């Protein structure tokens, strides 16, 4: 398929799927907590409402950073689904995330400041593993291109089990889920109020929400890549990963950042690099 066409499909479907996944997340979380939970479409209602709200800022320019966060996130996902270079996708993802952090710094409130700081720690924690994932896929398939990796005949998960596990660990951080919802939690009952998101409101908050939808679809797409040889298994794996994240979210206390950093790096070192060494030398 033409990369541009795939980009377009992603552009249309990602927010729908992402929003729906967010709805499933809320519904399922509620059920795990013995609650009935909101309707499946609740995330869309939320975003629509936020769009209609007044936008309050501390510094006028803080919103632009969020806007760029959104468009870069869309761009990153587009790169991924258009079949581009995985490393480039990682870099673009970082760039996008950085814009959100800068926005939070710009807002200059203690809560968003610490949120930004913690977001950086989170990035520091997952970044190596995500790079290792890209490297592992390269070593297994001989190409950094998503296209080629997807077209690879073997099931990558079989050759990269450690990398897959490490990547799932990072998903917890990336999805902002317990035990690693440090910089901003989905529910505000945390020591940082909403952390990095504290000072964003109205349409800006809606943009962040939508950007997360795009991001989540991208990340699940990446899980799919591990099983790309058999599309059905891939989709099942992506959904399974998503469910796993939700179940873990509801089964863990929030941990502190040193635990996260050490845990993530240890995972990267042992699972990720162990896998890569195995791949290279055996």
């Amino acid at each position, binding site marked *: 398929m033409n990369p541009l066409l795939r980009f377009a499909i992603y552009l249309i479907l990602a927010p729908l799927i992402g929003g729906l996944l967010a709805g499933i997340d809320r519904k399922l979380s509620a059920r795990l*907590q013995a609650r009935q939970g909101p*309707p499946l479409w609740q995330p869309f209602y939320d975003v629509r409402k936020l769009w209609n*709200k007044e936008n*309050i800022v501390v510094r006028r320019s803080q919103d632009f950073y969020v806007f760029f966060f959104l468009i870069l996130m869309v761009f990153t996902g587009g790169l991924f689904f258009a079949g581009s270079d995985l490393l480039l996708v990682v870099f673009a993802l970082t760039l996008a995330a950085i814009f959100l952090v800068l926005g939070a710094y710009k807002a200059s409130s203690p809560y968003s400041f610490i949120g930004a700081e913690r977001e950086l720690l989170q990035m520091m924690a997952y970044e190596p593993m995500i790079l290792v994932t890209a490297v592992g896929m390269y070593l297994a398939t001989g190409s950094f291109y998503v296209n080629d990796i997807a077209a690879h005949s073997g099931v990558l998960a079989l050759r990269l089990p450690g990398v897959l596990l490490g990547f799932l660990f990072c998903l917890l951080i990336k999805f902002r889920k317990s035990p690693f919802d440090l910089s901003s939690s989905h*529910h*505000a009952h945390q020591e940082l109020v909403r952390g990095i998101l504290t000072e*964003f409101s*109205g349409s800006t908050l809606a943009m962040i929400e939508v950007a997360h939808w795009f991001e989540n679809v991208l990340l699940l797409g990446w899980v799919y890549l591990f099983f790309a040889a058999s599309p059905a298994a891939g989709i099942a794996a992506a959904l399974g990963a998503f469910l796993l994240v939700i179940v873990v979210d509801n089964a863990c206390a929030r941990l502190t950042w040193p635990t996260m950093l050490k845990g993530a790096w240890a995972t990267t070192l042992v699972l990720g690099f162990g896998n890569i060494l195995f791949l290279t030398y055996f």
Partner: protein
Amino acid sequence: MPAFAKSPWVIHYDASSCNGCDIETLACLTPLYDAERLGVVNTGNPKHADIFLVTGAVNAQSGDVIRNIYHQLPEPKVVVAVGACAASGGIFRECYNIHGGVDTVVPVDVYVGGCAARPEAIIDGIVRAVQILEVKHKATQAAARGIDKLVYEPALAGDIPEILALQKVTYRSEAEIYGDDSLPAMQQTLAEIEADLAQWTFLKASINGKIVGSIRGRIEGATGYIRRCIVHPYFRGRGIARRLITEMERSFPPQVVRFETLTGHKSRRNLAMCEKLGYRVFKTEEYLPTVQWVHLQKERK
């Protein structure tokens, strides 16, 4: 479909309550009542919330906090007073440190009775609040669309608190220009501005009852002094300030032949606007270490 009906996000603050209504408010979110079914999220952060649930009566300290939170809620917003104390001061209304219900500090839209208010009653209150949100949202939309329906008229004593709030929002941009956030206009208290009412006449620009701009003027001999022309940042660049100044000039009696106004030396937009209206600089003086006053004058044509 209404935009607010399905996603009311709440923030809860315990003013001076006994905790009874507090824990019942929290209980609304828990499995048996699960207000999230209705889209309710407890945000804990005023900037994300639509509905402000206040429990407990108000004392001087919690009053300040309520006011702060209220101002940080984005429009449209609704305040729900939960429980007897929040509605009226309840059993504590005779205490020396209690000022009364929440409506003594911020406007309350919905009252929920009970001691302690039951979760069902609080859910009812939220449902009622959502309807009000919807109404307020429509009104704001109408205001934004109805910018041509602006009304310019003299401000009354009752408008003064709103004008003060507007003044503080407006002068934020000036503070940024001068790198000084201690500008007197930002420090003014309600008592001071009410005292001003004796000497100054106030004009306001409002849309559907919401004040978006204001100006004040005073006559001394044949000179009309025009001060503090403020316009809500959202409505700037639409000619409201210019119109306010002209309205003020027009409101002065005929014996006033000269108008005088002033602005800070770095407020380029203000200076440009005044000059467009025919004002000319005639002197500058030191006002604050950071600000110099630029005085402008104009003869009546």
